[in-house]
Each structure stands twice: as structure tokens, then as C-alpha cells.
């Protein structure tokens, strides 16, 4: 295990030290006193474990390909931006554009996330990105979503599932699935997203993700899965097929 005190470090110095440690074969790197340093985990292509003590800065794990990052507190904007593979676990809340353009790997956020989460999330063959949000997502969740799975648990709402307040969910969606524990009104959805109560098969699909969530952050799987979920899916893989005059 390698320990780095980041208290006085600029992000470039810090990330160089992290990359250096990875190059020397470190399997676990613990970062102490993180105060908003950006791009942690970016440019690393090994399944190294990185533990972040403090609040990391924007674009945590941007373009990340392999590492497992655990953040013990909140994270800021751009967590997992265009991430290819790996795991990010945030034991708090995260800011805007979580998982934007994410293609593979998993992100678990204990509490809520900001605006524009999972925008442009996509999948390709074995790359199937997963974003699990313990609390509430805000507006524009899963816009232009082209693949992957988003699960929002609304655990900071009432016991039997949240009343989600986000709007423009799944606008332009043409792939992937969004599961919301609780309820959502028609007006909150983009017109390209279809919506129905989740069935048994759907619950079976997300069970593993909820189990991973509870293993990380606590909670009762059956309690959570026992509530009502709604499922959002794209009405078409070609939502704008008829837009143009050829």
C-alpha cells in the first residue's frame, strides 16, 4: 500500500505521484488530505485500488480505464466522465454530469447526484456501464442515453420509494434502461422515453446492482427491492429517424 499526503499538492504533482506508484506496481494507493484535486484516476490503465480521503475535485476518473476508486466523502462534478472501465464508489453525494458518456464500469453514489447524470451514457458489447444513485438524481438524467443501466433508489425519500422531482429524464434516449424506485409523472420524462412499472424480470436484472450498493453502503436489499420501481426505456433506437428530408 502506498500512502500519499496530498494536502499541499497541485493536481499535476499528485496525479504524477499516483501514476508513478502505479508504474512501480502498487496495488493500493491511499490519498490523504485531498482538497479538490482534479482528474484523480485519469490516464491509469491498471486495476489499482485508490482510496480518497477528502473531497476530490472535478472529473474524478475521467477517461478512466481500470482503477477502483473509493471516495470516503462527497465528490464534485464530472465523476466518471467518458469512463471506459473500472469502479468508482462515493460515500456521499456527487455533483453534476456524473457518468457522462460513460461506456463501461460501475459507479455507485451513496446519496444524491446533481444535474445531467448519465447524459450520453452508452454501451458496446461487453462494456455495459452501470450507475447506481442512492438518493435523487436532478434534472436531465439520462439524456441522449444510448446504453447502460441507471438505477436511482431515492433512499432519502420516504420509506416506500421516492417521489422523484427531476425533469427531462431520458430526453432523446435511444438505448439503455433507467430504473427509478418510486414514482415519476409523465411530464417529468422526455418524449423519447417509455415508462412502465418494473416487472419481476426487471427487478431480477437490477438485484445484483442493489446488492452491491447495500454491501458498500448498508441497507436491506429485500426492503429496497420490495418497493415499487418504474422502468424507463427508449421508444426507439432511432428517435430522430424521420427528422430529415432526404
Amino acid at each position, binding site marked *: 500500500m502506498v500512502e500519499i499526503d496530498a494536502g499541499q499538492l497541485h493536481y499535476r504533482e499528485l496525479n504524477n505521484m499516483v501514476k508513478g506508484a502505479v508504474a512501480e506496481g502498487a496495488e493500493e494507493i491511499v490519498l490523504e488530505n485531498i482538497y479538490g484535486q*482534479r482528474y484523480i484516476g485519469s490516464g491509469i490503465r491498471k486495476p489499482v485500488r485508490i482510496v480518497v480521503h477528502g473531497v476530490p475535485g472535478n472529473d474524478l476518473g475521467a477517461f478512466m480505464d481500470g482503477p477502483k476508486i473509493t471516495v470516503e466523502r462527497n465528490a464534485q462534478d464530472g465523476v466518471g466522465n467518458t469512463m*471506459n472501465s473500472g469502479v468508482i464508489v462515493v460515500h456521499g453525494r456527487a455533483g453534476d454530469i456524473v457518468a457522462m458518456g460513460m461506456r463501461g464500469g460501475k459507479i455507485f453514489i451513496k446519496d444524491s447526484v446533481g444535474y445531467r447524470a448519465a447524459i450520453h451514457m452508452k454501451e458496446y458489447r461487453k462494456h455495459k456501464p452501470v450507475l447506481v444513485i442512492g438518493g435523487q438524481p436532478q434534472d436531465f438524467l439520462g439524456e441522449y442515453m444510448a446504453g447502460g443501466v441507471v438505477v436511482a433508489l431515492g433512499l432519502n425519500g420516504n420509506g416506500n420509494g421516492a417521489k422523484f422531482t427531476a425533469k427531462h429524464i431520458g430526453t432523446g434516449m435511444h438505448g439503455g434502461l433507467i430504473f427509478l424506485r418510486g414514482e415519476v409523472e409523465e411530464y417529468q420524462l422526455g418524449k423519447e422515453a417509455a415508462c412502465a412499472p418494473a416487472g419481476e424480470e426487471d427487478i431480477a436484472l437490477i438485484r445484483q446492482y442493489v446488492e452491491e450498493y447495500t454491501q458498500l453502503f448498508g441497507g436491506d436489499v429485500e426492503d429496497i427491492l420490495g418497493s415499487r420501481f418504474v422502468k424507463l426505456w427508449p421508444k426507439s433506437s*432511432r428517435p430522430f*429517424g424521420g427528422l*430529415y428530408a432526404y
Partner: protein
Amino acid sequence: MKSYIIPEFLVDRDDHRCIRCEVCVRQCGFDVHYYDEEDDEVYVDENKCVGCLRCVTLCPTNALVVRENPTQVPGNANWNREVLHNIYKQAETGGVLLTGMGCDKDYRNYWDRITLDASQVTNPSIDPLREPMELRTYLGAKPDALKIGGRKGKASLQTALSPQLRMETPMMFSAISYGAISYNTCECLARAATEMGTYYNTGEGGLHRDLYRYGDHTICQVASGRFGVHADYLEVAAALEIKIGQGAKPGIGGHLPGEKVSAEISRTRMIPEGTDALSPAPHHDIYSIEDLAQLIYALKEATHWEKPVSVKIAAVHNSAAIASGIVRAGADIVAIDGIRGGTGAAPTMIRDNVGIPIELALASVDSRLRDEGIRNRASIVIAGGIRSSADVVKAIALGADAVYIGTAALVALGCHVCQKCYTGTCNWGIATQDPYLTKRLNPEVGTRRLVNLLTGWSHEIMEILGGMGINAIESLRGNRLRLRGVGLTQEELDILGIKHAGA
């Protein structure tokens, strides 16, 4: 619904010359020609002809003539044929009009209103056939000052330079995505760039694995859709380019329709086959210059600060201020694409009516960066309607470090500018994914043609430089005293920062 659009072209076949070889039948992806065995006749459906001239070019007996149809809706200067056609088409479809290639409106072309200066007796010209001429160009941020050290008469550079792109000629191939163009076209561009010691640009469609071997000559784009953007792609590139805007469609995103997302396109863009590839104009993580800076540095961090990062915008009236922001955000290269910039598909009204000519944008950006004292912090690359080596020289004298060549490169490969790229049935095998059509562009032959084009232009640039008494392209950069306007207004001259001819 019956179409009210009269065929744009007529196809005349000289029956005495036609040998019924059916080359025209096989060559036309738009199915204009068809052979009737019973009649032993080749018939044509002129409604489908786009005027690409593939059949005419390949007809072994020169039996074909394609000409503009003289019978047209009368129209007038205001309600001209194109306006009427557009209305008929939209009345039939209810869709957004699409078009391929750059803006074809007759906006003033400033390249053609600028002449170059030449040396005479007191400052003699240089003969490039016997004197060395330097076209080598480096793109990237240059330091404010150089510190030279050294010992015992040996000088050495002490300033650490930012990563630079080294090119042997100040021309690169523009961003054109795999998807908009065929794999063979991408290969031609990649190989020609490699052979000429310059670069081509992937556009936003990712980079096919088989082309990774040309990575040292590849600029990889990162656009809002982030298609095909992953660690390998970032690593293999010589430089990265964040695409914000495109000259053909400023403020408008890209859309590769699902039917064009074939198995190979799907593999390269890393999206499932048959789904729409949507890349809206805004990057959802860029709402400000600060956000742009964040993406620039994210890319630098992900690639260990080893590659220059370019930011490409469309030329708009506020380009100078935007470029200043881009430079301050840490970009090593500012790429600006003018209103005549090409495209595989753009909404026609946007292409023809949004943006400004690159000549004006270039002059104002270069002036602004100089005024602010930050011109050295980024290179300027321009694109959008560069048609000849003379345009290149004028662009460099107006302040560009290098130019991107798009349409001219495709024309070198056979494109006849029929402007139907968006149909995906390009008969020249360029803007298509149909395997039957793509085979028509032989990568060997295409590479040769592109290398020849750049070689010819490079020689011409040397000749022009020699005529101006300059032996290195570096010495011409931003040297507007060597330019003169002909027939331009004072305001135009002021924006271009040049004098009128005779002055």
C-alpha cells in the same frame, strides 16, 4: 405523393456509341441507368441523377453526356430554382433539408480579392530550385522567451517546450469522420499524411483499429458524443482535438443515422449496430471557458501531458473573443472552420446562412491574440474552403500557422461535389459505407493522388515564397504587409488588416 421537382439533370446517350456494356448501370448507386434485355436498350431515370458524373467518366465509348436540365420552373432572382425545389421537397416530406459539402452560396471570396506581393530588384526573389526552402511547421504553444545555455561553444535550449506537432508542409487533412466517409477514404488520408510528414484528423467517429499504425500522424477528435473515445484512442493519437463547432453547421450537432451504423462503424464508434449516433452541439460538460479548460486539462492528464490539445470552433462573428478564451483555457492549437467548411450532412439552411468567411475570422483572431500578447501561446489552424496553394499562402500571411484541407482532398480522390454525401450512395466510393461502392476507391491509388496534390501544392508554396523573397514559411506567418486587397471596402481592408493594392 407525386413530386413536383423537375429533374435537375438530363442524361443523353449516343446510341451509336453505346456498346451496351452496362458500366453505367453498375456504376450508378442512384439507379439512374437500367438495361432492358428484351429491347437491348439502356434506359435512364433522370429523376434520380445527382450529376456526380461517375457514369460519364467511366463510359468506355464516351457515349454519355450529363447536362443541366434547361426546362426548369421559371422562377426569378428572388424565387430561384433552388428556393422552389426546397419548398417542393419540404412540402413533400415535412423534413429538415439536408445537404452535403460546404456552403455553395456566392458570398464574397476574400482569397480571390487578395493578391500577394513579390520581390523585385532591391529585395531580390529566391530561386527555390537551387536554394533551400523551409516549409516545416511546428504546431503547439511556444514559450514567451527562450533561455539558451551552453558550455564550450555548444548552445543548448534550456526552456522546456510544450509538446509540438512537427509537420513537413503547412497543410493537414481536415476532420472527416469514419461514417461520413468510407474506410478506404480514411486509409488514403492516413497513409498520405504519413507519407507527407503531416497529419489527418479522425473527426468525431473514432479511429478504426486497423489505422492505429498511422497514429503518429493522426489527430483524434473528442466531440460531444464521445464516440470511440477511450484510452487506446487517446494514447495512439499524435494530438487531440476537442470539436466544439464545424464551419458547415455552427451551433449544430452531428447525427449519423442508424442505418449507416454498420458493424465496422459500430466497432469504431463503440455503439451498437443500427442505433443513431447523436452528438449534440454542446458538450454537456462544457458550459463555459472554465469548463473547456477542464476538458483540455482532463485530456492532457489522461495522456500524461505528452500531446498538444486543439480546440476547433466554427467561424462566427465573435470568434476573436472566443479564441482568446480558448487560448487562456490552455489549448495548444485553435482550429477555426469557416462558412465554406465541408460536411457530410448539414441542415441546408444552417450551412448556407450561419457563420462567416474564414478569411475574416482568421484575420480578427490573429489580430486579437497579438493585441492581447498571447499569440505565441497557441497555433492557429484554419479550415473551410482552401482550394489551392495560393489560398494556403494567403492564409499563412493572414496569420494562420497551418491549414486543414477537406473538400480539396476529397476532390483529389474523385469527388465531383454533387453535394449528396448524406445519402450514403457516393458513386466515387468516398462518402459511403456500401461495400460495393467503397471498393471503388483503391487505397493505393487514392494515397498517390493525395500525395501528389500535397506535393504539387508544396512546390507551388515554395515558388510563391521564393517570389516573395522569403525562404521559410515561418517568416511569412502573419506578414500582412505582403498582401494587398483588390476591390475591397475600407472596412473589409481594416478587418483583414491589409492595404489596398496600389497603396
